[in-house]
C-alpha cells in the first residue's frame, strides 16, 4: 500500500489546482501541537505548503463539510477521502445533500489513524510532539523524555475495527484500492446483548450520565443534516438545553440513534468527538446489527441511491412481532 504523505497530497492538489480541475481544497491545517488539526479551505498552493497537514492524526471525516462548501462559489472542491469517509459521502449523495458535480474526490488509502487520548493515557499529559512517520510512534514528553509506542496500540477505536479499505466513491485514487474487510465491530454489541436488561440499563445509565449535552455528536454526524434539529427548535416541545433528569439524556441519544438508523455508515465520528468519551457508536452498531439480522446485510453508503431497508417495503419484510422476538435473541 502506498504511504500517503502530506507531500503526495500537496503534489496532487498542485496538479489539480493548476490545471483548473478544482478551485479549492478542503483539508486540515496544522495546529499548535502535533495532533490538533483544524479543517480549512485552501485556494492556493503556497498556503497549502505553509499550513496543510496530513498524517496519522488526520482522522476527521470531511464528507459533511461538503454540504456547506459546495454552496460557496463556483468551481469544484478537492477533497481527500479515506475509505470510511466515502461511505458517508455516498450516503449524503443518496439524501441529495450536495451537488456531486461540485466535488472532486481523491481516494486515499488508510492504514488507520491514531487517537491522542490513547497516547495521553499511556504517557500522561505533557505531549510535546509526536513523530508518526513509522509504525512505532516517537512521543516527546515534557517529563519523561522521548517514549516509543506501537501505532497499533494507540489506533483510534473505530480504526481498530475498520470495516473497509475500499473506496466506494472517488474520481481518482492514489495507490491501489483495498477490499471490504471482516471486522470485529459487533463484538461489543454482542457483549451488550448478552447482558440482562438491568445490566444493560446500568451500563448505559453510567455512560450517558456523563453527557453534558454539548451536541457535538449530533453536530459532527454526517447523518445528522437536518436544517433545524428538533432538539434546537423551541416550537418542537422537546427542545431542551439540559436534562431534567438522567433519563432524559438517554432519550436524546436513543432518539438520535433511531433517527440515523439505516443511514449511519458507522464512521465513528460521534465517539471520536465526545468530550466525555461515551461510546455512542455502540448504539448505532446495535441498530446496524439488528437491521442486518432482520433484512440481510446492508451497508449504508455502499452505493448512491440504495433504498435502506427501513424505508423500503418488500413482501418478505419481517412482521413487527417477529422483529421483537429476533431482537430478544
Amino acid at each position, binding site marked *: 500500500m502506498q504511504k500517503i504523505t502530506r507531500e503526495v497530497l500537496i503534489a496532487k492538489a498542485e496538479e489539480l489546482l493548476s490545471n483548473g480541475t478544482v478551485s479549492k481544497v478542503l483539508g486540515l491545517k496544522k495546529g499548535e*501541537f502535533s495532533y490538533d488539526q*483544524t479543517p*480549512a479551505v485552501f485556494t492556493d498552493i503556497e498556503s497549502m505548503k505553509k499550513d496543510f497537514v496530513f498524517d496519522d492524526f488526520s482522522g476527521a471525516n470531511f464528507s459533511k463539510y461538503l454540504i456547506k462548501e459546495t454552496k460557496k462559489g463556483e468551481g469544484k472542491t478537492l477533497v481527500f477521502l479515506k475509505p470510511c469517509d466515502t461511505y458517508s459521502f455516498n450516503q449524503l449523495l443518496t439524501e441529495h445533500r450536495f451537488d456531486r458535480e461540485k466535488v472532486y474526490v481523491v481516494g486515499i488509502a488508510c492504514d488507520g489513524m491514531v487517537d491522542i487520548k490513547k497516547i495521553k493515557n499511556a504517557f500522561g499529559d505533557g505531549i510535546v510532539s509526536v513523530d508518526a512517520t513509522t509504525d512505532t510512534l516517537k512521543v516527546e514528553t515534557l517529563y519523561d523524555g522521548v517514549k516509543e509506542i506501537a501505532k497499533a496500540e494507540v489506533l483510534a477505536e473505530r480504526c481498530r475495527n475498520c470495516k473497509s479499505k475500499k473506496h466506494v466513491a472517488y474520481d481518482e485514487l492514489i495507490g491501489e484500492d483495498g477490499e471490504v474487510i471482516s471486522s470485529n465491530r459487533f463484538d461489543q454489541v454482542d457483549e451488550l446483548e448478552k447482558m440482562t436488561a438491568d445490566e444493560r440499563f446500568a451500563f448505559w445509565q453510567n455512560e450517558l450520565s456523563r453527557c453534558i449535552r454539548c451536541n457535538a455528536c449530533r453536530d*459532527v454526524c454526517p447523518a445528522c443534516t437536518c436544517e433545524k434539529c428538533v432538539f434546537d427548535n423551541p416550537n418542537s416541545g422537546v427542545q431542551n438545553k439540559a436534562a431534567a433528569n438522567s433519563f432524559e439524556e438517554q432519550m436524546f441519544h436513543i432518539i438520535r440513534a433511531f433517527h440515523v438508523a439505516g443511514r449511519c455508515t458507522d464512521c465513528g465520528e460521534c465517539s471520536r468527538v465526545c*468530550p466525555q468519551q461515551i461510546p455512542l457508536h455502540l448504539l448505532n452498531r446495535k441498530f446496524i446489527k439488528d437491521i442486518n439480522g432482520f433484512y440481510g446485510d446492508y451497508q449504508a453508503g455502499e452505493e448512491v441511491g440504495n433504498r435502506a431497508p427501513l424505508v423500503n417495503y418488500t413482501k418478505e419484510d419481517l412482521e413487527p412481532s417477529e422483529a421483537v422476538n429476533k431482537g430478544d435473541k
Partner: protein
Amino acid sequence: MRKISLSNLDKAFALIAENAKLYIPVDGKGGASFKLWQEGVKMSDALNTVRSAKDFFFPQMETLMEFKTEGKNIEIIDNRQEKEDFVVFGVRACDVKSFEILDRVFLSEPVDSYYASRREKGVIVSLACGRPSETCFCKTFGIDAANPAGDITAWKTETDLYLLANTEKGEKLLSAISSITEDCDGKAVEEQKKQISAIMEKLPLSNVTTEKFGAGKTKEYFDSPAWDELSSHCLGCGTCTFVCPTCQCYDIKDFKTNEGVQRFRCWDSCMYSDFTLMAHGNSRASQKERFRQRFMHKLVYYPDNNDGMFSCVGCGRCLTKCPISMNIVKVMKTLGGKEND
C-alpha cells in the same frame, strides 16, 4: 505552614467529611471528575477534571423555584437545598481563578442568591500543578500554577501534602485536621514552586500574550476579516462552553406539570442557534457571529466591564475537547498577529 504525610491523607479526608461534604477529583471512565469522598475513594493524579469546578457553584441544571396552582391561588415554593457546608479539594490554579471571574458576574448587584449561598458554604482547597500539560497557558492570564489561591493552598510532593491557609474558612478547616498535621518550614514548597515555574517557562504556549486584547478593543477586532476563516468549520456544538470554567451564560425555562410549574435554569451556549432567541429571531444569525461573540466576550467585552480582567484562565480544556481543534489560543494568535506566535 502545616504538612501531612500522604499515607495519612485518607484520615484527613475522613476528619473533614465528619463536618462537611468533601469532594475530590476521582478517576473514572472518560477522565477525572469531582466526586463525593467516602471511605475507599481515591484521589486522581490527573492534572485536571474534564468538567471544571464551576459546577459546584453554578451547576448545569438547577431548579430555581416551583409554582403550585390551586384554583386561582399560586403558591411559590423555594426549594433550595444548599444548607450544608462543603469542601472541594484539589482545585487547580486556573479553576480557582475562574471563581473570581464568576463572582464578578453573579455577586454584583443584583446578587444571584443561589450562587452566593453556595460560595458562602463552599471551602476551596487548591492544589499546585506539579505536572502542567502542553495545553496549559494560565500564565498568559497572570495565574501562578505554583501558587494557586483558594481558602487553603496545597502542594503535593512524593511523600507529603503541604497546606497553607489563606482565609478564615481555611484556618478553620486546617484546625479541624490539626491533630494529624504538623508544623513545618516551607523549604519543600519553595523547591516545588521553583520547579513548576521553570516548567511553565518551557511550555509550548508560554509565549501567548494578552497584550493585544482587553478593554476598548471592540472596534479593532469586531469587523476583522479573520473571523470568517476562524469560524468557518465551527460545528456550533457547545463543547467549549460546557467544559469552560468561566462560561457563565444560562437560560431559564419552565417545566410544566399537571400540578404546577418547575422553573429551572441551565447552562446555555452562545454557540447554539437558539441562544438569546427573541420574538424576532436570533440576533446572531450566523455561526461566525456566534463564534465571534464567545471570543470577544472572553478577550474584550468582559475586560470592558471588569477593570480589564480577562474571562479566560488558560486551563486548556477547550484545546483538548473541541472536535475541530479550534480554540482561544488560535484566535489570539490569528487576531493578535506576530507577537503571539
